[in-house]
C-alpha cells in the first residue's frame, strides 16, 4: 500500500492547485461584466457584419488527420511500457499496426491534403532590358544566398 502514497499525494496536490486557481480568479477579480468584454476581439474595431459561419474544408481535413494519428499514438503507449514482457510477437504486431497507418499517411500526403495554401513559386523577375536604369558608380547585388537558380551572375 505504501508505494502508492506519493502518487495519491501528487493527485491531491494537483486537484487542490487546480481548484484553488480556478476559484481564486473568481474571488480576486472584481466582477464587471460588460457587452464589450463578451464581444470578440477584433483589434479594437467593432465589426459591422458577423463573420460567415462556413469555413473552408481544408481546416476540417487537417483536424481529422491529427485526431487519427493522435489516437494511433495512444495505442502505442501501453506497448511501450511493457515491451519486454510482451516479447517479439507484440513487437511485430505493433509494426504491422503502424505500417497500416503509414500507408494511410502516404496516401493522404500524395493526395495533397497537407500542402497548405498556394505553392510559392520562385518567380524570376523578367527584367525588361530597356527599363533597367543604368546605374552610375559602384552597385552591389545582395540577397543571392540560397536562391534556387544560382545561374544569375551578379551585375557589374
Amino acid at each position, binding site marked *: 500500500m505504501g508505494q502508492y502514497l506519493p502518487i495519491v499525494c501528487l493527485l491531491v496536490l494537483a486537484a487542490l492547485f487546480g481548484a484553488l486557481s480556478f476559484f481564486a480568479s473568481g*474571488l480576486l477579480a*472584481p466582477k464587471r461584466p460588460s457587452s464589450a468584454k463578451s464581444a470578440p*476581439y477584433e483589434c*479594437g474595431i467593432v465589426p459591422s457584419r458577423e463573420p460567415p459561419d462556413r469555413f473552408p474544408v481544408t481546416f476540417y481535413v487537417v483536424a481529422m488527420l491529427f485526431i487519427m494519428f493522435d489516437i494511433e499514438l495512444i495505442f502505442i503507449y501501453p506497448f511501450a511500457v511493457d515491451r519486454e514482457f510482451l516479447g517479439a510477437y507484440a513487437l511485430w504486431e505493433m509494426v504491422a499496426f503502424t505500417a497500416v497507418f503509414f500507408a494511410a499517411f502516404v496516401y493522404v500526403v500524395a493526395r495533397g491534403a497537407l500542402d497548405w495554401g498556394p505553392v510559392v513559386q520562385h518567380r524570376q523577375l523578367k527584367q525588361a532590358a530597356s527599363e533597367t536604369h543604368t546605374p552610375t558608380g559602384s552597385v552591389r547585388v545582395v540577397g543571392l544566398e540560397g536562391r534556387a537558380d544560382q545561374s544569375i551572375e551578379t551585375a557589374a
Partner: protein
Amino acid sequence: MSLIKDIQADGFGGIPHNAITAKLEDLVGWARSRSSWPASFGLACCAIEMMATGAAHYDISRFGMEVFRASPRQADIMIVAGRVSQKMAPVLRQVYDQMMEPKWVISMGVCASSGGMFNNYAIVQGVDQVVPVDVYAPGCPPTPETLIHAIETLHQKIEDGELLKRRTATGGGAHMHVTEIPQGARPMPVILGRR
C-alpha cells in the same frame, strides 16, 4: 449568510476589512503589482521608447512585465504610448473595455497625457477624456528611465490600493474600483481609496 452573498457578488471586495484580512489584502496587492503584464498599445514615437524599455538594456522584466500581451484579455496595464487621434479614440475605448479587471492605465508621453505640442483638430487633448488614467509619464518621448519610474509608481499604487470593503456606513474609505460607465453618461472619475 450575507457574507457568502457578498463574496459571490463582488468576490474579494465583499469581505469586510479587519485585522485578520489586512495581511491577505497586502499579499494580493503585492502579487498583483509584481506580475502585471502590459497591453502594448504602441501608437507613435513613445512606442519606440516603450519597446526600448522592454528590450535588454532597460528591461522591465525585472519588474515582472517581461511580456507585452497583444490581446487585452491577458493584459493588466494598458500603456497608452503616443498621440491618440480622433479616429483612434473609439478603438482605444473598445480595447480598454475589453480588458479584464482589475486594470490600470499609464498615459505615456505628453501627447497622450494632454495632447502635447499638437493642440489641433486631429488629436484627443489628453487620453483621460477616453479612459480613466492612473499614472501620467511626462516626456516627449519619456526616456525609458521615466517610464520605469511611472511603472514603479503604479506598482506602489497597486500595492497600497484597498481591495476589501471598508466601513462604508460611516463613509470612511472607499473601494478602489473603476465603476462601469452607464449608457450615455459623462465619464465617471476614478474613485481612489483613502487608507
